[in-house]
């Protein structure tokens, strides 16, 4: 290409581009008007959402390091945190970092557990603690806790639990598996060492320090499926659970407290959908049996002489949030009612926590037989 042809081509291109651009305005202007209208509505909605959403506090400001247990909620919180769907919820903790209006000393019922027991995603005024009939309830719980931290807290609190009803909530979605892991999402957490070499099971806390640890991330739904399918992992987590329940019961008994285990089923739509997809692809899906978790825990509790309440018999998918997988307002009300019933039975001395006794609660409307399946179907 010679120099003269190039010299006229560049301005010609620019001229043509300008003409083409002007001509394109016939199309661009109406499309632009439409898109700008849609954008204005969306932007206004986003702006309103920002204006009406309270400032939320990150988890690092909500929890603090605690020796042995790893972390605990900060005392004196009165702020908003963000749930997994991005919705804010109001968190209030007392001077010891517990949720509940009465404080540990004045409470009749003390609830231990993970984020469900902590009331994750629930405003303070909607918490199950507030709906437990007339029972005075305090929750000693934190997000990310496994079954190990509650035992450590029971042992640590000792005599302060005297004369109280201890309700230990175990989330079947991950508490069983987490008890074997020395790390929770990178944070050092106490764990059970089963001691299969003959040393016997023990809780390991020597590695628990501030800061993160390089440890493989959890296997989430894969581990859940494996545990529900029997096999090695299943037997390991149940061995750990039995050890922990016995140890927790020893601590409660020594303190003069009664203990009831309450299992929390995995019924929320979001994890159910992930689980359904996994099972649809997995060859071992025919071995999958979620009822195994409650049956095995019930057997463990029976052997230990501890009361057991499977919340699956009292709750359905409608009690769970759609995106975040914790309880919704109706779920907290239902759990509060179960707690209230437990408290009433306990006051009457009819709570069978002795050998062979599952807690004999008034019957609730039974969930649909395929509640676990229908949870996934409810995903938006």
């Amino acid at each position, binding site marked *: *290409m*010679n120099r003269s042809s190039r010299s006229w*081509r*560049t301005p*010609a*291109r*620019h*001229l*043509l*581009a*300008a003409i*083409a*651009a002007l001509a*394109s*305005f016939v*199309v*661009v202007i109406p*499309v*632009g008007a*439409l*898109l700008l209208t*849609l*954008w204005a*509505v*969306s*932007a*206004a*909605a*986003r*702006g*309103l*959402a*920002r204006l*009406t*959403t309270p400032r939320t506090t990150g*988890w690092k400001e909500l*929890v603090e390091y605690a020796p042995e247990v790893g972390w605990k909620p900060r005392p004196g919180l009165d702020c908003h945190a963000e749930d*997994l*769907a*991005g*919705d*804010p919820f109001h968190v209030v903790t007392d001077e010891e970092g517990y949720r509940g209006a009465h404080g540990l000393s004045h409470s009749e019922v003390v609830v231990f557990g993970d*984020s469900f027991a902590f009331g994750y995603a629930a405003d303070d005024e909607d918490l199950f603690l507030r709906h437990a009939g007339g029972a005075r309830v305090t929750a000693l719980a934190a*997000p*990310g806790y496994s079954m190990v931290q509650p035992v450590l807290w029971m042992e640590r609190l000792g005599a302060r639990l005297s004369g109280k009803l201890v309700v230990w909530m175990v989330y079947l979605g*991950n508490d069983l598996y987490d008890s074997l892991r020395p790390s*929770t*999402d990178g*944070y050092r957490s106490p764990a059970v060492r089963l001691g299969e070499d003959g040393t016997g099971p023990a809780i390991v806390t020597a590695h628990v320090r501030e800061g993160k640890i390089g440890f493989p*991330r*959890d296997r*989430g*739904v894969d581990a859940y499926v494996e545990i529900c399918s029997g096999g090695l992992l299943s037997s390991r987590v149940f061995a750990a659970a039995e050890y922990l329940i016995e140890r927790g019961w020893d601590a409660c008994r020594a303190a003069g407290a009664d203990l009831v285990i309450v299992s929390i089923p995995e019924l929320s739509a*979001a*994890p159910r959908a*992930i689980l359904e997809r*996994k099972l649809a692809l997995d060859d071992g899906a025919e071995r999958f049996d979620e009822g195994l978790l409650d049956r095995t825990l019930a057997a463990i509790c029976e052997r230990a002489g501890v009361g057991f309440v499977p919340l699956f018999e009292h709750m359905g998918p409608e009690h769970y949030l759609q*995106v975040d997988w*914790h309880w919704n307002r109706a779920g907290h009300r239902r759990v509060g009612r179960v707690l209230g019933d437990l408290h009433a039975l306990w006051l009457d001395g009819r709570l069978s926590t002795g050998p062979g006794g599952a807690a004999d609660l008034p019957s609730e409307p039974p969930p649909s037989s395929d509640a676990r399946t229908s949870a996934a179907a409810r995903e*938006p």
Partner: protein
Amino acid sequence: MIRLPDPPTRALVRGTWLILSLGAALIASVIFLAAGAPAWSLWGAGVLAILLVAGRARPRLRRSAYGAWRRVCGGLGRRAGVILERTAFAIVAVVGWAGGDMMRRPEPVDSGWRPRSTLQAGAYTSSGPAPEPDSSTGWLRSLLAWGRRSGHGWVWALVPVLALQRLIRPSARRALDGRNYTLY
């Protein structure tokens, strides 16, 4: 940008319902004004009040409206995207066809062959001219700078089309994986 995220937060659902209600009230007012109704603004306010009460009483209605608005934005956005893409191609085609080299036969005396030396494997990306992504200054400044630097100033003609196309970009979806930890 025009399409709202899924799943939404409760505040976003509420905000969308309020804005859509305001829009409906405005349209109602305009209709009553055009029909010569004396209290047209009251009619608009009535529509707004009914919608706000309905949304308050039936949160599911708000969520359905949010989903419907998302679908409307998605459908219209897709169609608008196709039109804008074709418009952009048309501008490029006009410039390339009439003022470029595409339709011109190579002159026999001047070969288009250019010798190239071998690049290090790590350095090899693309030997052709292309706008360099520059996140610090934004896509518009980067594109305009590239046009000026490379002598392709005609790309400025694409700016209105590209700017509108950016409105159609899908918003980031909140990722939920199979891990069910809730600590941090």
